[in-house]
């Protein structure tokens, strides 16, 4: 019976440490997500077609679809895919990226909807 308080104290310490770590992680995530960038889809084209972002940090990309038809933001380079319905805005988290050029496109109108994210 003497063992159990010690054990539970150890458990509590472990839980506290885990929580502290989790909190730190969350805080880091929120801070990294501060960088917000915007893209617009109009007439099945991305504006701007080239978006420069800092390398090495996570960014929050707000993509506004001004067309009436749905579009799918897709990028093999970034490993991202998301449907954006007509007349709406979607949020996509990107990165942290190594410096370089990352192509993206609108899957539903691939001929015109082309763009690139430049991380530097």
């Amino acid at each position, binding site marked *: 019976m003497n063992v159990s308080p010690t054990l539970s104290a150890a458990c509590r310490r472990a839980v506290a440490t885990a929580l502290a770590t989790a909190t730190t992680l969350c805080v880091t*995530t929120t801070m990294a997500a501060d960088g917000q960038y915007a893209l617009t889809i109009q007439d099945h084209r991305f504006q701007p077609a080239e978006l420069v972002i800092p390398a090495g940090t996570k960014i929050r990309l707000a993509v506004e679809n001004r067309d*009436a038809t*749905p579009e*799918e933001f897709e990028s*093999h380079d970034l*490993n991202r895919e998301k*449907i954006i*319905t*007509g007349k709406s805005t979607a949020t996509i988290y990107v990165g942290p990226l190594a410096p370089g050029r990352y192509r993206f496109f609108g899957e*539903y109108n691939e001929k015109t909807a082309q763009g690139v994210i430049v991380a530097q």
Partner: protein
Amino acid sequence: MFGTAVIVFREVLEAALIIGILAAATRSVPNRNRWLLGGLAAGLAGSALVAVSTDMISAMASGVGQELLNATILGIAVLMLAWHNIWMTSHGKALAISAKAVGQAIQQGRRENSVLLVVVGLAVLREGSETVLFLYGISASEGAGTSSMLLGGGIGILAGISLGYALYAGLLRVPMRWFFAATGVLVLLLAAGMASQAAHFLIQADVLPSLAAPLWDTSAMLPENSIPGMLLHSLAGYDPRPAGMQLIFYALTLTTIALGMKWAGRPVAQ
């Protein structure tokens, strides 16, 4: 038209392959077809519903509702497939070999059938809603070429279903001795691939950290949009640029289900 056919084909293929594998894996389960069709119908109805409410779903959870929905659907499918595989290991052999187990098996077969319904429904729901939205977009946009694009969509649907059926027919030709092992491995890979995709959506929604992204890049060797890449993606969750977290999900699912199957298939002391 060709581009449309390819997009629709890709969406339909994934669901068709899942249904093909499950239909083969449950060939000896009574009343299988009725449940399969039920799942298909429920999935299609659900797709239309999801497509109509995509606006609302997207706006949920500060803009990442779509990702959370996809991850949830995939997560449920993984659990169902795990249950299916472990059940099949413990009862499949008896079902195929000994007649005396059939009475009991039919009773449990009913439970197995509802698993079938849910997984088929979820697979169709996920891929179907994207197809519905895409085809809606085409028919809603004015201008020339709409009918040829819809024709392309039809061709894509047919091509996807044909491949799923080919896989099913091919699996039925596998000799009974290896059949359960073969479908077991396919379902195992399917489940692991789905778990990795679920992780992918949770990373995109910023719910999970990516833990090194990409871990490696094989897109030059085997691009995701090539036919082999697409097949491998649907069957085994191939991702040319996986994040570390995806690999963890993949490996954990694979080992957990494999261990469960091993445990269920252990020789029982007489």
